[in-house]
């Protein structure tokens, strides 16, 4: 698991639930290092152990945790530069949905080795999407729900999200998520000015 994702989990738990919960979860998971480095690669199993431990410490399901984390990644103010990177995927919420197939490639383009869940989007009617995700860890679907909910607010769209199914086959998690765009222009989108680089 890429350090960026491990660090996201750490950042989410520390800022949302406190350093104490994070330390406790690491202790329970039997992890010596209390801090992940974004530029390292960690064994998937280590990430899973910490994730399970955090869920246990908080008494929440992993799905709930991952959805919350997805939302945190997009809305946590210091992560504004990351939120901007999401917006490059499309000008509107619907355009973003269609580009979900590419999001893993896009991540790799920015940072080789950064493996996000793989998402495949299907749309049978306008504004209705089913996203199948595959990932080595649990929660690819809920994570997407959290990210999409927060991005919908960014784009000013009104959406309905639901994880339809989640199952582990041969060590890989397969989730199915339904996305319904109720109204694309529900409110004014937050501004997105291009070219903000140093």
């Amino acid at each position, binding site marked *: 698991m890429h350090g960026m994702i491990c660090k996201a989990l750490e950042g989410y738990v520390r800022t949302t639930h406190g350093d104490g919960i994070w330390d406790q979860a690491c202790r329970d998971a039997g992890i010596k290092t209390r801090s992940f480095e974004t530029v390292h690669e960690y064994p998937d199993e280590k990430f899973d152990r910490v994730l399970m431990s955090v869920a246990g410490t908080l008494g929440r399901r992993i799905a709930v945790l991952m959805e919350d984390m997805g939302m945190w990644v997009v809305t946590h103010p210091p992560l504004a530069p990351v939120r901007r990177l999401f917006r490059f995927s499309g000008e509107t919420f619907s355009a973003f949905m269609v580009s979900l197939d590419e999001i893993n490639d896009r991540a790799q383009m920015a940072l080789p080795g950064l493996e996000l869940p793989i998402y495949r989007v299907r749309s049978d009617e306008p504004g209705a999407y089913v996203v199948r995700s595959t990932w080595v860890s649990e929660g690819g679907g809920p994570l997407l729900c959290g990210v999409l909910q927060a991005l919908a607010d960014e784009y000013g769209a009104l959406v309905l999200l639901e994880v339809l199914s989640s199952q582990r086959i041969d060590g890989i998690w397969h989730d199915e998520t339904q996305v319904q765009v109720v109204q694309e222009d529900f409110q004014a989108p937050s501004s997105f000015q291009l070219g903000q*680089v*140093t």
Partner: protein
Amino acid sequence: MNELSVGTHVIDAGLPMHMVCDAAGTVLHAGPTLERIRPGLVGQNMETAFRIVLPCMPATMSNLLDHQGERMFLEVVADQDGAAEQTKLRGVCFAIGGGMVLLNFFFGTDVARAVIRHGLTARHFAPFDPTMELLFLMEARDVILKEFKQVSGRLDEARKSAEKQAVTDALTGLLNRRALDEQLQNLADRRSKTYALMHLDLDFFKSVNDTYGHAAGDCVLEKVGIILREQVRSDDLVARVGGDEFVLVFNNCDDVGLMQRIAQRIIARLEEPISFEGNTCRISGSIGITLSSYYADPSPTRMMAEADAALYASKKNGRSRATVAARPASEDV
């Protein structure tokens, strides 16, 4: 198919930064994005709106036609407001018949600044234009670079704190001052233990350094480290506490005669010539000795001070010798 006639809206969508000039250089039409970059362009002359930087030449129609299909570097000449002043563009031109020229512009390395300067959005680029991906990559690079800088900063901090916690002297591998202080404090805390302390200062070391250089000096210090380690038991301590100063601590030792014999052996070994790159380095050593059993309260500070005073006596009496600290007569041990 040699000719293709398409509506202006098609060209505007595909080449939003193009313009068409007539044979006199008057701008007849400008794409929507170019119009945003240089408002009021239509009707002006090409030469008043753009400057060709490379190849260096006036922006006349005949010059443009001489360089058809080649990449040119241009600058936007300021309109009245001065807003478009610094924008750099690249351009390529083609004759399109009837004496008209189509000049299409695109951004170069200046793209991020230009996009901010003119408030451009994804809509201002053709749907197939990879400029958006370029801007994405530039921002992603910033995010990742910032992350690397933070990691690098943390590593620096970790290194500094590791250095602070180091217990050995890098050159000789002996304990350093900090480690010695800690060990002496441990001994002081376990009051039942007796120990002997030897303070050694090299003689003539400065002249080795001055004559043969620091590399020779370092070689001598390494050799001294080896000699001292050979003269102690495994649970004794040897520390380098200054440039050419060493402290030896002998655990469970109350035998002043033994200490004197060891000191003599050390001095004899130090006086053996050390060769370095064809030169022969000669040093010796002055030593001060004291025993914890001499004092009612053998604090590390006291022990070090007494050994130091004895060392000073050795130096004063001609160097290359060992002196035992005077046993205090009045102290009730």
